[in-house]
Protein backbone atom coordinates (compact mmCIF):
# COMPACT_ATOMS: atom_id res chain seq x y z
CA UNK A 1 0.00 0.00 0.00
CA UNK A 2 1.42 3.32 -0.91
CA UNK A 3 -1.45 5.71 -0.40
CA UNK A 4 0.01 9.18 -0.11
CA UNK A 5 -1.53 11.43 2.48
CA UNK A 6 -0.43 15.02 2.81
CA UNK A 7 -1.89 17.27 5.46
CA UNK A 8 0.87 19.73 6.01
CA UNK A 9 1.61 23.43 6.18
CA UNK A 10 4.80 25.31 5.37
CA UNK A 11 4.33 28.63 7.08
CA UNK A 12 7.19 30.45 5.36
CA UNK A 13 5.68 29.77 1.95
CA UNK A 14 2.11 30.44 2.92
CA UNK A 15 1.18 26.92 1.96
CA UNK A 16 -1.22 24.53 3.74
CA UNK A 17 -2.00 21.49 1.65
CA UNK A 18 -4.37 18.63 2.32
CA UNK A 19 -4.42 15.85 -0.19
CA UNK A 20 -4.75 12.09 -0.45
CA UNK A 21 -3.47 10.07 -3.38
CA UNK A 22 -4.95 6.56 -3.30
CA UNK A 23 -2.47 3.77 -3.72
CA UNK A 24 -1.83 3.03 -7.36
CA UNK A 25 -3.49 6.11 -8.72
CA UNK A 26 -1.94 8.88 -10.73
CA UNK A 27 -2.83 12.31 -9.39
CA UNK A 28 -2.41 15.29 -11.66
CA UNK A 29 -1.62 18.52 -9.85
CA UNK A 30 -2.59 21.73 -11.60
CA UNK A 31 -2.56 25.35 -10.56
CA UNK A 32 -1.06 28.72 -11.37
CA UNK A 33 2.61 29.60 -10.92
CA UNK A 34 3.62 29.99 -7.31
CA UNK A 35 0.53 28.19 -6.05
CA UNK A 36 2.53 25.53 -4.23
CA UNK A 37 2.72 22.60 -6.64
CA UNK A 38 6.45 22.17 -6.31
CA UNK A 39 6.13 22.69 -2.58
CA UNK A 40 3.68 19.78 -2.44
CA UNK A 41 6.10 17.52 -4.27
CA UNK A 42 8.95 18.57 -2.03
CA UNK A 43 6.88 17.75 1.04
CA UNK A 44 6.28 14.25 -0.28
CA UNK A 45 9.91 13.81 -1.28
CA UNK A 46 11.07 14.85 2.18
CA UNK A 47 12.87 17.89 0.84
CA UNK A 48 10.78 20.23 2.97
CA UNK A 49 9.84 19.94 6.60
CA UNK A 50 6.19 20.73 7.32
CA UNK A 51 5.88 23.38 10.00
CA UNK A 52 2.65 21.68 10.95
CA UNK A 53 0.87 18.46 10.00
CA UNK A 54 2.26 15.33 8.43
CA UNK A 55 3.00 13.39 5.27
CA UNK A 56 2.17 9.72 5.17
CA UNK A 57 2.82 7.02 2.59
CA UNK A 58 0.92 3.83 3.35
CA UNK A 59 0.93 3.35 7.11
CA UNK A 60 4.20 5.18 7.62
CA UNK A 61 4.35 8.77 8.75
CA UNK A 62 7.27 10.06 6.69
CA UNK A 63 7.22 13.67 7.85
CA UNK A 64 5.79 15.60 10.69
CA UNK A 65 6.88 18.82 12.32
CA UNK A 66 9.47 16.96 14.37
CA UNK A 67 10.81 14.19 12.20
CA UNK A 68 11.41 13.92 8.49
CA UNK A 69 12.33 10.51 7.10
CA UNK A 70 15.32 10.93 4.79
CA UNK A 71 14.58 11.27 1.09
CA UNK A 72 16.59 8.23 0.05
CA UNK A 73 14.61 5.89 2.29
CA UNK A 74 11.28 7.00 0.88
CA UNK A 75 11.63 5.35 -2.51
CA UNK A 76 10.10 8.48 -3.91
CA UNK A 77 11.47 9.46 -7.32
CA UNK A 78 11.36 13.15 -8.13
CA UNK A 79 11.68 14.35 -11.68
CA UNK A 80 12.42 18.05 -11.57
CA UNK A 81 11.77 20.71 -14.17
CA UNK A 82 15.45 20.75 -14.99
CA UNK A 83 16.61 17.34 -15.99
CA UNK A 84 19.70 17.72 -13.74
CA UNK A 85 21.59 14.81 -15.23
CA UNK A 86 24.84 14.11 -13.43
CA UNK A 87 27.52 15.82 -15.49
CA UNK A 88 30.24 13.36 -14.53
CA UNK A 89 28.36 10.25 -15.63
CA UNK A 90 27.44 9.01 -19.07
CA UNK A 91 23.79 8.85 -20.06
CA UNK A 92 23.84 5.11 -19.37
CA UNK A 93 25.35 5.51 -15.93
CA UNK A 94 22.89 8.28 -15.13
CA UNK A 95 20.03 5.91 -15.75
CA UNK A 96 21.81 3.04 -14.02
CA UNK A 97 22.27 5.24 -10.94
CA UNK A 98 19.10 4.28 -9.08
CA UNK A 99 19.42 0.50 -9.61
CA UNK A 100 23.05 0.74 -8.55
CA UNK A 101 22.05 2.70 -5.46
CA UNK A 102 19.50 0.00 -4.71
CA UNK A 103 22.27 -2.57 -4.74
CA UNK A 104 22.06 -4.04 -8.24
CA UNK A 105 25.26 -5.29 -9.82
CA UNK A 106 26.84 -3.09 -12.43
CA UNK A 107 25.70 -5.43 -15.19
CA UNK A 108 22.12 -5.71 -13.95
CA UNK A 109 21.91 -1.96 -13.47
CA UNK A 110 23.20 -1.27 -16.95
CA UNK A 111 20.83 -3.78 -18.44
CA UNK A 112 17.96 -2.08 -16.68
CA UNK A 113 19.26 1.30 -17.81
CA UNK A 114 19.38 0.21 -21.43
CA UNK A 115 15.80 -1.02 -21.13
CA UNK A 116 14.64 2.28 -19.67
CA UNK A 117 16.54 4.25 -22.29
CA UNK A 118 14.91 2.17 -24.98
CA UNK A 119 11.58 2.97 -23.38
CA UNK A 120 12.15 6.68 -23.96
CA UNK A 121 13.76 6.19 -27.35
CA UNK A 122 17.21 7.24 -26.23
CA UNK A 123 19.10 3.96 -26.38
CA UNK A 124 21.38 5.41 -29.04
CA UNK A 125 22.52 8.14 -26.64
CA UNK A 126 23.73 5.73 -23.94
CA UNK A 127 27.39 6.58 -24.42
CA UNK A 128 27.02 10.35 -24.49
CA UNK A 129 27.88 12.73 -21.73
CA UNK A 130 25.01 14.69 -20.20
CA UNK A 131 26.10 17.99 -21.74
CA UNK A 132 26.07 16.51 -25.22
CA UNK A 133 22.29 16.23 -25.26
CA UNK A 134 19.77 18.75 -26.47
CA UNK A 135 17.20 19.95 -23.96
CA UNK A 136 14.60 17.49 -25.12
CA UNK A 137 16.94 14.54 -25.13
CA UNK A 138 18.12 15.34 -21.62
CA UNK A 139 14.55 15.45 -20.34
CA UNK A 140 13.79 12.06 -21.82
CA UNK A 141 16.89 10.56 -20.25
CA UNK A 142 15.90 12.10 -16.91
CA UNK A 143 12.54 10.36 -17.14
CA UNK A 144 14.24 7.06 -17.83
CA UNK A 145 16.47 7.67 -14.84
CA UNK A 146 13.55 8.40 -12.52
CA UNK A 147 11.70 5.27 -13.59
CA UNK A 148 14.73 2.99 -13.39
CA UNK A 149 14.56 2.95 -9.60
CA UNK A 150 11.11 1.31 -9.33
CA UNK A 151 9.95 4.00 -6.92
CA UNK A 152 6.93 3.54 -4.64
CA UNK A 153 5.77 7.06 -5.41
CA UNK A 154 6.70 8.94 -8.54
CA UNK A 155 6.74 12.72 -8.41
CA UNK A 156 6.90 14.56 -11.72
CA UNK A 157 7.29 18.33 -11.80
CA UNK A 158 6.25 19.42 -15.29
CA UNK A 159 8.09 16.64 -17.09
CA UNK A 160 6.83 17.58 -20.55
CA UNK A 161 8.18 21.07 -20.30
CA UNK A 162 10.55 21.77 -23.17
CA UNK A 163 9.53 18.89 -25.36
CA UNK A 164 8.17 19.40 -28.84
CA UNK A 165 4.68 18.19 -29.62
CA UNK A 166 5.80 14.93 -31.17
CA UNK A 167 8.16 14.04 -28.37
CA UNK A 168 5.65 15.14 -25.75
CA UNK A 169 2.97 12.92 -27.25
CA UNK A 170 5.37 10.00 -27.29
CA UNK A 171 6.34 10.59 -23.68
CA UNK A 172 2.74 11.02 -22.69
CA UNK A 173 2.13 7.54 -23.99
CA UNK A 174 5.14 6.19 -22.19
CA UNK A 175 4.17 7.83 -18.92
CA UNK A 176 0.55 6.71 -19.21
CA UNK A 177 1.80 3.18 -19.67
CA UNK A 178 4.55 3.18 -17.07
CA UNK A 179 2.74 5.11 -14.36
CA UNK A 180 -0.43 3.04 -14.55
CA UNK A 181 -1.04 1.46 -11.16
CA UNK A 182 1.84 3.36 -9.64
CA UNK A 183 1.11 6.02 -7.05
CA UNK A 184 2.18 9.24 -8.74
CA UNK A 185 1.87 12.99 -8.51
CA UNK A 186 2.19 14.77 -11.83
CA UNK A 187 2.45 18.56 -11.93
CA UNK A 188 1.36 19.80 -15.31
CA UNK A 189 -0.19 22.71 -17.13
CA UNK A 190 -1.63 20.56 -19.91
CA UNK A 191 -5.17 19.25 -19.91
CA UNK A 192 -4.10 16.48 -22.22
CA UNK A 193 -1.58 15.24 -19.68
CA UNK A 194 -4.26 15.20 -17.04
CA UNK A 195 -6.70 13.05 -18.85
CA UNK A 196 -4.36 10.71 -20.69
CA UNK A 197 -2.03 10.03 -17.78
CA UNK A 198 -3.87 10.80 -14.56
CA UNK A 199 -6.79 9.15 -12.75
CA UNK A 200 -7.33 12.04 -10.40
CA UNK A 201 -6.71 15.77 -10.37
CA UNK A 202 -5.92 18.18 -7.59
CA UNK A 203 -6.30 21.86 -8.26
CA UNK A 204 -4.01 24.05 -6.18
CA UNK A 205 -4.33 27.77 -5.79
CA UNK A 206 -2.81 30.20 -3.34
CA UNK A 207 -1.16 27.45 -1.35
CA UNK A 208 -4.37 25.46 -0.81
CA UNK A 209 -5.83 22.39 -2.47
CA UNK A 210 -8.96 23.91 -3.99
CA UNK A 211 -10.54 20.74 -5.23
CA UNK A 212 -9.67 17.18 -5.94
CA UNK A 213 -11.48 14.32 -7.60
CA UNK A 214 -11.48 11.83 -10.46
CA UNK A 215 -9.83 13.31 -13.53
CA UNK A 216 -12.78 12.50 -15.75
CA UNK A 217 -15.34 14.13 -13.44
CA UNK A 218 -13.31 17.27 -12.89
CA UNK A 219 -12.53 17.68 -16.55
CA UNK A 220 -16.19 17.27 -17.47
CA UNK A 221 -17.45 19.54 -14.71
CA UNK A 222 -14.59 21.90 -13.96
CA UNK A 223 -15.64 23.85 -10.92
CA UNK A 224 -12.67 26.17 -10.75
CA UNK A 225 -11.71 28.88 -13.16
CA UNK A 226 -8.30 27.35 -13.49
CA UNK A 227 -9.59 23.95 -14.51
CA UNK A 228 -11.91 25.52 -17.02
CA UNK A 229 -8.98 27.44 -18.42
CA UNK A 230 -7.04 24.18 -18.70
CA UNK A 231 -9.64 23.32 -21.31
CA UNK A 232 -11.61 20.49 -19.82
CA UNK A 233 -12.20 17.87 -22.45
CA UNK A 234 -15.36 15.88 -22.39
CA UNK A 235 -14.69 12.19 -22.36
CA UNK A 236 -17.06 9.63 -23.76
CA UNK A 237 -16.30 6.06 -22.83
CA UNK A 238 -16.89 3.17 -25.19
CA UNK A 239 -15.32 0.27 -27.03
CA UNK A 240 -13.22 0.26 -30.16
CA UNK A 241 -15.22 -0.91 -33.14
CA UNK A 242 -14.13 -0.61 -36.75
CA UNK A 243 -11.88 2.34 -36.01
CA UNK A 244 -14.67 4.24 -34.25
CA UNK A 245 -15.63 4.35 -30.62
CA UNK A 246 -18.88 2.51 -30.02
CA UNK A 247 -20.93 3.90 -27.15
CA UNK A 248 -23.12 1.77 -24.90
CA UNK A 249 -26.22 2.64 -26.95
CA UNK A 250 -24.55 1.38 -30.11
CA UNK A 251 -23.87 4.80 -31.60
CA UNK A 252 -20.48 5.38 -33.10
CA UNK A 253 -18.20 8.31 -32.48
CA UNK A 254 -15.73 8.96 -35.25
CA UNK A 255 -12.43 10.60 -34.66
CA UNK A 256 -8.69 10.42 -35.16
CA UNK A 257 -6.94 7.70 -33.23
CA UNK A 258 -4.05 8.89 -31.07
CA UNK A 259 -0.76 7.53 -32.37
CA UNK A 260 0.83 7.02 -28.98
CA UNK A 261 -2.22 5.32 -27.42
CA UNK A 262 -4.27 3.99 -30.29
CA UNK A 263 -7.75 2.60 -29.90
CA UNK A 264 -7.90 -1.16 -30.35
CA UNK A 265 -10.76 -3.23 -31.71
CA UNK A 266 -13.01 -4.53 -28.95
CA UNK A 267 -11.00 -2.84 -26.24
CA UNK A 268 -12.26 -0.01 -24.03
CA UNK A 269 -11.41 3.47 -25.14
CA UNK A 270 -12.22 7.13 -24.83
CA UNK A 271 -13.24 9.90 -27.12
CA UNK A 272 -11.87 13.28 -26.13
CA UNK A 273 -14.15 16.04 -27.27
CA UNK A 274 -13.34 19.69 -26.63
CA UNK A 275 -16.54 21.48 -25.55
CA UNK A 276 -15.89 24.36 -27.90
CA UNK A 277 -15.92 21.93 -30.84
CA UNK A 278 -19.45 20.79 -30.10
CA UNK A 279 -22.15 22.70 -31.90
CA UNK A 280 -25.83 22.30 -31.15
CA UNK A 281 -28.48 21.93 -33.82
CA UNK A 282 -32.19 21.51 -33.58
CA UNK A 283 -32.19 19.32 -36.71
CA UNK A 284 -29.53 16.77 -37.71
CA UNK A 285 -27.36 18.74 -40.15
CA UNK A 286 -26.06 17.68 -43.52
CA UNK A 287 -22.46 18.40 -44.35
CA UNK A 288 -19.00 17.43 -43.25
CA UNK A 289 -19.53 16.79 -39.52
CA UNK A 290 -19.73 13.02 -39.14
CA UNK A 291 -20.74 12.93 -35.51
CA UNK A 292 -24.29 13.93 -34.71
CA UNK A 293 -25.51 12.59 -31.40
CA UNK A 294 -29.04 13.08 -30.03
CA UNK A 295 -28.78 14.78 -26.66
CA UNK A 296 -30.84 16.34 -23.93
CA UNK A 297 -29.79 19.59 -22.33
CA UNK A 298 -29.23 19.11 -18.62
CA UNK A 299 -27.99 22.47 -17.50
CA UNK A 300 -26.74 25.80 -18.76
CA UNK A 301 -23.92 27.61 -17.10
CA UNK A 302 -22.65 30.99 -18.20
CA UNK A 303 -18.86 31.18 -18.23
CA UNK A 304 -17.76 34.61 -19.24
CA UNK A 305 -18.35 35.10 -22.93
CA UNK A 306 -19.72 31.61 -23.51
CA UNK A 307 -22.35 29.37 -22.06
CA UNK A 308 -21.41 25.85 -21.15
CA UNK A 309 -24.24 23.52 -22.00
CA UNK A 310 -24.15 20.17 -20.27
CA UNK A 311 -25.75 17.43 -22.28
CA UNK A 312 -26.88 13.92 -21.58
CA UNK A 313 -25.73 11.69 -24.43
CA UNK A 314 -26.81 8.08 -23.93
CA UNK A 315 -26.30 8.33 -20.16
CA UNK A 316 -22.93 10.00 -20.58
CA UNK A 317 -22.08 13.63 -20.23
CA UNK A 318 -20.98 15.89 -22.98
CA UNK A 319 -20.22 19.59 -22.70
CA UNK A 320 -20.73 22.18 -25.40
CA UNK A 321 -19.55 25.75 -25.25
CA UNK A 322 -21.71 28.05 -27.28
CA UNK A 323 -22.24 31.79 -27.34
CA UNK A 324 -25.14 33.21 -25.39
CA UNK A 325 -26.60 34.48 -28.66
CA UNK A 326 -26.87 30.87 -29.85
CA UNK A 327 -28.58 29.82 -26.65
CA UNK A 328 -31.06 32.62 -27.03
CA UNK A 329 -31.53 32.05 -30.77
CA UNK A 330 -32.26 28.37 -30.30
CA UNK A 331 -34.32 28.88 -27.16
CA UNK A 332 -32.35 26.31 -25.23
CA UNK A 333 -33.25 25.31 -21.71
CA UNK A 334 -32.94 22.21 -19.54
CA UNK A 335 -34.83 19.38 -21.18
CA UNK A 336 -34.41 20.69 -24.75
CA UNK A 337 -33.71 17.93 -27.22
CA UNK A 338 -30.86 18.83 -29.53
CA UNK A 339 -28.30 17.30 -31.83
CA UNK A 340 -24.74 17.58 -30.60
CA UNK A 341 -22.62 17.85 -33.69
CA UNK A 342 -18.86 17.58 -33.73
CA UNK A 343 -16.45 17.15 -36.58
CA UNK A 344 -14.55 13.88 -36.63
CA UNK A 345 -11.23 15.72 -36.94
CA UNK A 346 -11.87 17.41 -33.60
CA UNK A 347 -12.40 14.15 -31.81
CA UNK A 348 -9.42 12.18 -30.62
CA UNK A 349 -9.80 8.51 -29.81
CA UNK A 350 -7.59 6.95 -27.15
CA UNK A 351 -7.20 3.38 -26.09
CA UNK A 352 -7.16 2.95 -22.35
Amino acid sequence: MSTVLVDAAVASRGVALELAVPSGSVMAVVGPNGSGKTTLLHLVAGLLRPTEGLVRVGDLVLSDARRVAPTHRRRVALLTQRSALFPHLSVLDNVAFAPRAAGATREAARERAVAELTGVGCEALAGRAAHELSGGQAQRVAIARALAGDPRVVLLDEPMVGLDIGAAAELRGILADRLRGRTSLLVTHEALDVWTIADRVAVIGGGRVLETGPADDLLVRPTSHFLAQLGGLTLLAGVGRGGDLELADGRHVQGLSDEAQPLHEGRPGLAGIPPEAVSLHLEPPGGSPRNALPAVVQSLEPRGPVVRVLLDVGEQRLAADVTSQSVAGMGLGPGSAVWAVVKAVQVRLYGR
Partner: protein
Amino acid sequence: MIRPPLPRWLALPAAFAAIFLAVPLVAMLVRVPWSRFPALLATSSSLDALWLSLRTCVASTAVCLVLGLPLAVVLSRSHGRLATAGRLLASLPMVLPPVVAGLALLVALGRRAWLGSRLSLLGVDLAFTTAAVVVAQTFVAMPYLVVTVEGALRSAQDDFDVVAATLGASPTTVLGRVTLPLAAPAIASGTALAFARALGEFGATLTFAGSLQGTTRTLPLEVYLVRETDTDAAIALSVVLVAIAVVLVAVTAVLGRRQQVRR
Protein backbone atom coordinates in the same frame (compact mmCIF):
# COMPACT_ATOMS: atom_id res chain seq x y z
CA MET B 1 30.14 26.55 -26.88
CA ILE B 2 32.50 29.47 -27.01
CA ARG B 3 32.96 30.78 -23.49
CA PRO B 4 33.36 34.52 -23.29
CA PRO B 5 37.07 35.35 -23.46
CA LEU B 6 39.01 36.73 -20.55
CA PRO B 7 39.87 40.42 -20.52
CA ARG B 8 43.13 40.93 -22.37
CA TRP B 9 44.68 43.10 -19.67
CA LEU B 10 44.51 40.12 -17.37
CA ALA B 11 47.48 38.67 -19.21
CA LEU B 12 49.72 41.40 -17.83
CA PRO B 13 49.46 40.72 -14.09
CA ALA B 14 49.21 36.99 -14.81
CA ALA B 15 52.42 37.04 -16.80
CA PHE B 16 54.07 39.14 -14.13
CA ALA B 17 53.01 36.62 -11.51
CA ALA B 18 54.32 33.75 -13.60
CA ILE B 19 57.65 35.50 -14.12
CA PHE B 20 57.88 36.31 -10.44
CA LEU B 21 57.41 32.65 -9.59
CA ALA B 22 59.66 31.42 -12.37
CA VAL B 23 62.72 33.60 -11.90
CA PRO B 24 63.90 32.18 -8.57
CA LEU B 25 63.34 28.64 -9.79
CA VAL B 26 65.30 29.25 -12.96
CA ALA B 27 68.04 31.01 -11.04
CA MET B 28 68.27 28.01 -8.78
CA LEU B 29 68.57 25.64 -11.72
CA VAL B 30 71.32 27.79 -13.20
CA ARG B 31 73.17 27.77 -9.93
CA VAL B 32 73.16 23.97 -9.55
CA PRO B 33 76.62 22.43 -9.95
CA TRP B 34 75.36 19.96 -12.56
CA SER B 35 78.71 18.19 -12.87
CA ARG B 36 78.60 17.17 -9.21
CA PHE B 37 74.92 16.36 -9.38
CA PRO B 38 75.12 12.58 -9.98
CA ALA B 39 77.72 12.12 -7.31
CA LEU B 40 75.71 14.17 -4.80
CA LEU B 41 72.59 12.24 -5.48
CA ALA B 42 74.26 8.87 -5.28
CA THR B 43 75.43 9.21 -1.68
CA SER B 44 73.70 6.83 0.69
CA SER B 45 72.44 9.72 2.80
CA SER B 46 70.79 11.40 -0.19
CA LEU B 47 69.22 8.20 -1.42
CA ASP B 48 68.01 7.32 2.06
CA ALA B 49 66.52 10.78 2.41
CA LEU B 50 64.83 10.64 -0.99
CA TRP B 51 63.32 7.24 -0.34
CA LEU B 52 62.22 8.25 3.15
CA SER B 53 60.64 11.43 1.83
CA LEU B 54 58.66 9.56 -0.78
CA ARG B 55 57.45 6.94 1.69
CA THR B 56 56.45 9.38 4.39
CA CYS B 57 54.79 11.80 1.99
CA VAL B 58 52.67 9.08 0.44
CA ALA B 59 51.72 7.92 3.92
CA SER B 60 50.93 11.35 5.26
CA THR B 61 48.98 12.32 2.14
CA ALA B 62 46.97 9.14 2.56
CA VAL B 63 46.26 10.02 6.18
CA CYS B 64 45.32 13.54 5.09
CA LEU B 65 42.80 12.10 2.66
CA VAL B 66 41.37 9.54 5.05
CA LEU B 67 40.93 12.02 7.88
CA GLY B 68 40.94 15.39 6.16
CA LEU B 69 38.41 14.64 3.45
CA PRO B 70 35.72 13.67 5.98
CA LEU B 71 36.53 16.78 8.00
CA ALA B 72 36.26 18.96 4.89
CA VAL B 73 32.92 17.43 3.94
CA VAL B 74 31.51 17.78 7.45
CA LEU B 75 32.70 21.38 7.75
CA SER B 76 31.30 22.30 4.34
CA ARG B 77 27.86 21.28 5.54
CA SER B 78 28.03 22.65 9.07
CA HIS B 79 26.68 25.92 10.33
CA GLY B 80 26.93 27.90 13.53
CA ARG B 81 29.53 28.22 16.25
CA LEU B 82 30.86 24.68 16.22
CA ALA B 83 31.41 24.85 12.47
CA THR B 84 33.28 28.14 12.75
CA ALA B 85 35.41 26.64 15.50
CA GLY B 86 36.09 23.62 13.33
CA ARG B 87 37.08 25.74 10.36
CA LEU B 88 39.34 27.74 12.63
CA LEU B 89 40.97 24.62 13.96
CA ALA B 90 41.48 23.25 10.48
CA SER B 91 43.40 26.28 9.34
CA LEU B 92 45.44 27.13 12.43
CA PRO B 93 48.34 24.74 11.84
CA MET B 94 49.02 26.58 8.59
CA VAL B 95 49.83 29.76 10.41
CA LEU B 96 52.27 28.28 12.88
CA PRO B 97 55.90 28.62 11.92
CA PRO B 98 56.89 25.01 11.28
CA VAL B 99 59.33 24.96 14.15
CA VAL B 100 56.57 26.02 16.51
CA ALA B 101 54.33 23.35 15.03
CA GLY B 102 57.06 20.85 15.83
CA LEU B 103 57.31 22.17 19.38
CA ALA B 104 53.56 21.90 19.77
CA LEU B 105 53.68 18.30 18.62
CA LEU B 106 56.56 17.66 20.98
CA VAL B 107 54.72 19.06 24.01
CA ALA B 108 51.59 17.13 23.02
CA LEU B 109 52.91 13.80 21.82
CA GLY B 110 56.45 13.72 23.21
CA ARG B 111 57.32 10.92 25.58
CA ARG B 112 57.04 13.13 28.59
CA ALA B 113 53.83 14.82 27.44
CA TRP B 114 50.39 14.07 28.78
CA LEU B 115 49.17 12.23 25.70
CA GLY B 116 52.55 10.93 24.62
CA SER B 117 53.23 9.29 27.96
CA ARG B 118 49.85 7.56 27.84
CA LEU B 119 50.54 6.37 24.32
CA SER B 120 53.91 5.11 25.56
CA LEU B 121 52.18 2.98 28.14
CA LEU B 122 50.19 1.44 25.31
CA GLY B 123 53.48 0.63 23.66
CA VAL B 124 53.08 3.36 21.06
CA ASP B 125 56.26 5.34 20.99
CA LEU B 126 56.20 7.96 18.31
CA ALA B 127 59.17 10.12 19.12
CA PHE B 128 62.05 9.91 16.64
CA THR B 129 60.45 7.20 14.56
CA THR B 130 59.39 7.36 10.95
CA ALA B 131 55.84 7.46 12.26
CA ALA B 132 56.69 10.76 13.93
CA VAL B 133 57.69 12.16 10.54
CA VAL B 134 54.32 11.13 9.14
CA VAL B 135 52.57 12.73 12.10
CA ALA B 136 54.48 15.99 11.65
CA GLN B 137 53.83 16.07 7.90
CA THR B 138 50.16 15.24 8.38
CA PHE B 139 49.75 17.96 10.98
CA VAL B 140 51.12 20.68 8.73
CA ALA B 141 49.72 19.36 5.43
CA MET B 142 46.16 18.37 6.34
CA PRO B 143 44.89 21.95 6.68
CA TYR B 144 45.70 22.62 3.02
CA LEU B 145 43.56 19.71 1.89
CA VAL B 146 40.74 20.57 4.27
CA VAL B 147 40.58 24.24 3.40
CA THR B 148 40.76 23.68 -0.35
CA VAL B 149 38.15 20.95 -0.50
CA GLU B 150 35.84 22.63 1.98
CA GLY B 151 35.87 25.86 -0.01
CA ALA B 152 35.06 24.06 -3.24
CA LEU B 153 32.26 22.02 -1.68
CA ARG B 154 30.77 25.08 -0.11
CA SER B 155 30.68 27.03 -3.35
CA ALA B 156 29.09 24.19 -5.32
CA GLN B 157 25.66 25.54 -6.23
CA ASP B 158 24.02 22.45 -7.59
CA ASP B 159 21.31 20.14 -6.29
CA PHE B 160 22.85 16.97 -7.58
CA ASP B 161 22.92 15.53 -4.09
CA VAL B 162 19.19 16.11 -3.79
CA VAL B 163 18.60 14.45 -7.14
CA ALA B 164 20.71 11.48 -6.06
CA ALA B 165 18.74 11.13 -2.83
CA THR B 166 15.45 11.05 -4.72
CA LEU B 167 16.94 8.24 -6.77
CA GLY B 168 17.38 6.25 -3.58
CA ALA B 169 21.04 6.91 -2.98
CA SER B 170 21.98 6.64 0.69
CA PRO B 171 24.11 9.43 2.14
CA THR B 172 27.17 7.24 1.67
CA THR B 173 26.32 6.62 -1.98
CA VAL B 174 25.60 10.30 -2.54
CA LEU B 175 28.97 11.13 -1.08
CA GLY B 176 30.90 8.53 -3.00
CA ARG B 177 29.16 8.68 -6.34
CA VAL B 178 28.07 12.30 -6.59
CA THR B 179 29.52 14.80 -4.12
CA LEU B 180 33.14 13.68 -4.21
CA PRO B 181 33.33 12.94 -7.96
CA LEU B 182 31.93 16.38 -8.69
CA ALA B 183 34.54 17.91 -6.39
CA ALA B 184 37.30 15.86 -8.01
CA PRO B 185 39.26 18.85 -9.35
CA ALA B 186 39.33 20.49 -5.92
CA ILE B 187 40.24 17.22 -4.23
CA ALA B 188 43.04 16.73 -6.73
CA SER B 189 44.43 20.19 -6.12
CA GLY B 190 43.97 19.86 -2.36
CA THR B 191 45.80 16.55 -2.39
CA ALA B 192 48.58 18.03 -4.49
CA LEU B 193 48.85 20.92 -2.03
CA ALA B 194 49.00 18.57 0.92
CA PHE B 195 51.57 16.34 -0.76
CA ALA B 196 53.66 19.35 -1.69
CA ARG B 197 53.50 20.77 1.81
CA ALA B 198 54.45 17.39 3.27
CA LEU B 199 57.28 17.00 0.80
CA GLY B 200 58.71 20.41 1.64
CA GLU B 201 58.07 20.03 5.36
CA PHE B 202 61.13 20.66 7.40
CA GLY B 203 60.83 22.61 10.63
CA ALA B 204 58.19 20.51 12.32
CA THR B 205 59.86 17.26 11.33
CA LEU B 206 63.23 18.41 12.57
CA THR B 207 61.82 19.52 15.89
CA PHE B 208 59.38 16.69 16.52
CA ALA B 209 60.95 13.72 14.78
CA GLY B 210 64.63 14.58 14.79
CA SER B 211 67.06 14.01 11.98
CA LEU B 212 68.23 10.42 11.91
CA GLN B 213 69.47 9.14 8.59
CA GLY B 214 67.09 6.59 7.08
CA THR B 215 64.54 6.99 9.87
CA THR B 216 63.54 10.62 10.14
CA ARG B 217 65.92 12.58 7.94
CA THR B 218 63.77 13.45 4.95
CA LEU B 219 65.07 15.21 1.88
CA PRO B 220 64.45 18.76 3.19
CA LEU B 221 66.29 17.87 6.38
CA GLU B 222 69.13 16.48 4.32
CA VAL B 223 69.19 19.72 2.35
CA TYR B 224 69.35 21.63 5.60
CA LEU B 225 72.20 19.55 6.87
CA VAL B 226 74.16 19.68 3.66
CA ARG B 227 73.80 23.44 3.63
CA GLU B 228 75.81 23.59 6.86
CA THR B 229 78.83 22.73 4.83
CA ASP B 230 77.98 23.30 1.16
CA THR B 231 75.35 25.71 -0.10
CA ASP B 232 75.59 24.60 -3.73
CA ALA B 233 75.11 20.97 -2.83
CA ALA B 234 72.01 21.98 -0.88
CA ILE B 235 70.60 23.72 -3.90
CA ALA B 236 71.37 20.67 -6.03
CA LEU B 237 69.44 18.44 -3.68
CA SER B 238 66.56 20.89 -3.66
CA VAL B 239 66.31 20.40 -7.38
CA VAL B 240 65.37 16.80 -6.64
CA LEU B 241 62.47 18.10 -4.57
CA VAL B 242 61.46 20.33 -7.43
CA ALA B 243 61.66 17.38 -9.82
CA ILE B 244 59.36 15.32 -7.63
CA ALA B 245 56.95 18.24 -7.53
CA VAL B 246 57.04 18.48 -11.31
CA VAL B 247 56.14 14.82 -11.64
CA LEU B 248 53.39 15.22 -9.05
CA VAL B 249 51.81 18.22 -10.73
CA ALA B 250 52.12 16.59 -14.14
CA VAL B 251 50.25 13.54 -12.88
CA THR B 252 47.57 15.74 -11.32
CA ALA B 253 47.23 17.60 -14.61
CA VAL B 254 46.81 14.37 -16.56
CA LEU B 255 44.21 13.09 -14.10
CA GLY B 256 42.48 16.46 -14.23
CA ARG B 257 42.43 16.36 -18.02
CA ARG B 258 40.90 12.89 -17.98
CA GLN B 259 38.23 14.15 -15.59
CA GLN B 260 37.59 17.10 -17.90
CA VAL B 261 37.10 14.79 -20.86
CA ARG B 262 34.49 12.71 -19.07
CA ARG B 263 32.30 15.72 -18.49
